[in-house]
């Protein structure tokens, strides 16, 4: 492995270089986003009829589809990201420190994409402010959708604070090497900074991390988000207490995969072999395996519960879900990834970063597929399953597919922009790697899982 010492220059490299590849990537991401913005404008002009959605029931359609599926998927990526970063800080998992900030930025990106999806999904997005805020004091008592929006906003604020606080330390120290162009931004970000605050900030960040971890099961992906579905009595494909753990496991799988892909890209682009080490990828892969195992276990629970002598409505829903080829494909991908992770853990020579990348992409596709299917399945097999036109039909329209490209572009742009503005690897991390060498670099090759 690398023997290079990580330096400040290393983490400043993305800020102080401009390559052709960067422009190409930037252009591609912008193109994706703009293409979707145009498609969205068309949707606003024509109405939601341009989507593949419809009315469940006598109409034979699906009320929600890809938009909501992708929405909860992005929220999952975001929530997983912040949990990951909080775990690094709280549990002293020092070896992952170099990717903690990437995880936080993933959270910001994921939440932005999710927020965007809320708007895209609405019939009258122009009324969001007046109708939702105006009645907030009433609806917050009942509506899981309002809880969702509340929690997502709260976590956006929390994550941004968290990121902002830790950035102060870096910026004030690296200021001389940062481009003058953004001086006003740095000024604002480090307003009132003095070295005395470091300790206070450390504690604050620790408490924020603690709050994230403690509230994760209840308020994040283990609670409020699945409640959007699980609390409704008449859609057996959604109901059940298992949805909380299931959503949480999916969130963590998606986030770990996402962070792995992003880390891979940065490492490649800026020669960070000695910062985002192989060791980090191996560790992340093992965690990914662990959560995939949990996820498959929860799926099994949910299915067996419906299929084996379940009440008619849940049996129908569970059977239909299991018989769906896309569901089988998604589960197959998750399972194969799990097998690979298991094998490479036994025989380290099977590990390669490319394979880790493939595993990440497989998991992200599997979770996205699962999310979209999950949303649609609810409408296909309701308790009141009498209509001839139910199960109806739904296939996402070109505009809906394009939204995936658009939001991916949005998140990519966020990273591309942020990487020119602030260090995406914490100064703390490289200080730590230099000062406490033995701990992070020569750590055992494998991490024993719980």
């Amino acid at each position: 492995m690398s023997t290079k010492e990580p330096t400040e220059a290393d983490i400043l490299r993305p800020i102080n270089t401009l390559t052709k590849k960067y422009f190409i990537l930037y252009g591609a991401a912008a193109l994706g986003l703009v293409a979707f913005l145009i498609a969205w404008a068309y949707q606003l002009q024509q109405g939601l009829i341009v989507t593949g959605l419809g009315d469940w029931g006598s109409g034979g359609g699906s009320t929600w589809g890809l938009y909501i599926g992708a929405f909860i998927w992005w929220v999952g990526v975001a929530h997983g990201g912040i949990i990951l970063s909080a775990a690094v800080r709280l549990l002293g998992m020092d070896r992952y420190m170099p990717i903690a900030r990437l995880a936080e930025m993933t959270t910001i990106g994921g939440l932005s994409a999710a927020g965007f999806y809320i708007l895209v999904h609405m019939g009258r997005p122009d009324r969001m402010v007046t109708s939702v805020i105006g009645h907030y004091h009433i609806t917050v008592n009942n509506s899981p959708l309002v809880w969702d929006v509340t929690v997502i906003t709260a976590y956006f604020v929390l994550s941004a604070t968290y990121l902002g606080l830790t950035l102060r330390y870096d910026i004030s120290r690296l200021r001389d090497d940062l481009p003058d162009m953004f001086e006003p931004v740095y000024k604002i970000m480090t307003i009132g900074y003095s070295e005395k605050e470091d300790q206070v900030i450390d504690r604050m960040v620790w408490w924020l991390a603690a709050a994230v971890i403690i509230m994760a099961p209840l308020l994040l992906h283990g609670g409020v988000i699945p409640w959007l579905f699980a609390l409704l009595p008449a859609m057996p494909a959604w109901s059940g207490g298992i949805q909380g753990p299931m959503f949480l496991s999916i969130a963590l799988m998606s986030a770990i995969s996402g962070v792995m892909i992003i880390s891979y890209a940065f490492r490649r682009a800026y020669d960070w072999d000695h910062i985002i080490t192989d060791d980090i990828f191996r560790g992340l892969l093992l965690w990914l395996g662990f959560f995939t195992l949990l996820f498959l276990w929860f799926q099994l629970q949910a299915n067996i519960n419906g299929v084996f002598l379940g009440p008619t409505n849940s049996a129908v829903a569970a059977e239909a879900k299991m018989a769906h080829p896309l569901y089988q494909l998604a589960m197959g991908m998750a399972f194969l990834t799990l097998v690979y992770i298991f094998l490479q853990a036994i025989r380290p020579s099977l590990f390669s970063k490319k394979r880790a990348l493939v595993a990440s992409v497989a998991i992200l596709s599997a979770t996205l597929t699962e999310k979209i299917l999950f949303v649609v399945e609810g409408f296909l097999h309701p308790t009141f399953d009498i209509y001839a036109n139910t199960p109806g039909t739904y296939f996402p329209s070109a505009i809906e597919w394009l939204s995936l490209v658009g939001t991916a572009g949005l998140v990519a742009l966020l990273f591309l922009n942020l990487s020119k503005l602030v260090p995406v690897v914490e100064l703390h991390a490289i200080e730590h790697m230099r000062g406490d060498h033995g701990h992070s670099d020569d750590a055992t090759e494998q991490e024993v899982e719980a």
Partner: protein
Amino acid sequence: MSTDDESFHPLGEEWEDELESMLDDTEYDSELGMKMAQDAMRVTEGELSEAEFHDRYHEEVMEEFGEDERPTKEAYEAAQEEAKGTAASMLEKFDGDGEETRRETMKKMGVGAAAVGMGAFGTAADGPEQSLAAEKGPRQETTEESDTQWGMTIDLDRCDGCLSCMTACSQENDLDQGVNWMYVMAWEDENHSGASDGGNTDTNSQFNRLSDYNMLVRPCQHCTDAPCEKVCPTTARHTRDKDGLVLTDYDVCIGCRYCQVACPYGVNYFQWDDPDVAYEDIDGLEDPEDPDEITHAEYEHGERWVDSRAPRGVMSKCTMCPSMQDGKQGEENVGTTACETACPPDAIQFGNVKDEASDPSQHREYPTKSRAVIDINANVPSPDVVDSNVSDGDSLEAAIEAIDSTEDADLDETTVAVAKAIEIQSRDTETDPGDEENNSILEQQQTVLEFVTALEEYVDLESESARETLDLDQVDDIGNAAQIRLEQYAGDPSSFQLLEDIGTNPNVTYLGTQPGPEAHQVEGPTKYEDVDLLDKRQEYLDKETVGHVDGVSL
């Protein structure tokens, strides 16, 4: 607001007056209540500690409320909550009791708690009205619970699947193709085969089901505990306090479609594109400037637009015709709906389900008798006809013969027997239709009763021979005999509500055969296309889907 008057409460004097008069309504000492309220406010302002508050009033409260310690405790807890500024949890206290009105809850909690409870809303800075509105939440009554709840009883055995109600609804409300607020379907399950398997065997009465199919007529159920309303993030989906209709405010809805997701019955239809009927062409929009003329569009007390087809991007569903219920379409239409009026066999009975005399209540409580009334009332001769054709001493047979042979009337023994049985069965029940609009079953029953009274001037219908002729002699007890006779004639349908175990408390009750959990829709007696209706809306929606590929589905 309260800045320059003497009141202790941030909402000012007006508010206190209302509070005082409310306290006057309770059976407790209102002076004590006001004093407690005052001090409760001081607690929230930090001038008085909770413990002091508790001590100060403990004795007096014990005196006032007797042994029961609960009121003081609750008042104390309420004050504590208030001190934390958690208005939301205060609200829950009132919301949580479900059935009870706020006023009742307050009585129960005692004056102190009441005062504190009201005080909680003082934190809202937008004046008494808004605060009240804020506090009452989407489902709560402002004062007494309304004694009107519109609803339906639908006799599925009478439904012949003609789809008249569906067409009437879609005309009345200018609905798009495939937006079937009212939906009628035929169904089968393993216990109830339909017409395709050679007729039904469920009914062993003379009552002929109007079709061989098992029918289901599905409007919005206007649930008392409507999940669609609970989940709405905007309060666009709301229940009207005054009459329990569940409606959508087309000006507030953001089109998130969560209501459609949460409704277990699948009755919602989203407006995916611009509606076929332009706003200016909405029926009943005779003079948009004159609030009395606005029946369909821009409507509820002239403020909320809840009637007729939805504009693009918002949710719609069966409304049960609020403009009719509010008298905007003439007094004669209050208590009716477009579908009820259109139904040829009178299968749909709409009205105030809380009123014992209403059609849906009558039909639900006395299904056999009501069916018989609906069935025969048009055939019974008027008292005049009886008077001019029957004379004293005529035998029953002779009387029937005499009436039947006239131009003006047909009469047979069955009609007389059923009419008499109705009269016997209605002896202990409500017979006065009252002044409520359109209590048609009781009005029709009056016709039947008048005929029986007229006939009995001349003929003793309870003599042994008459009972034999009328088949009212199966058992000695004449009440039981009448019931048996009516069941013979009209059957004894069971009643049910859809998905009763889900807790929605629907306000539509059905008579007839309940579809089992595996029931599925089959083709009915009338095809949707034949009456210009579109069944599968998705076919229409798919045409506009960008990049739609036929036959591909998740």
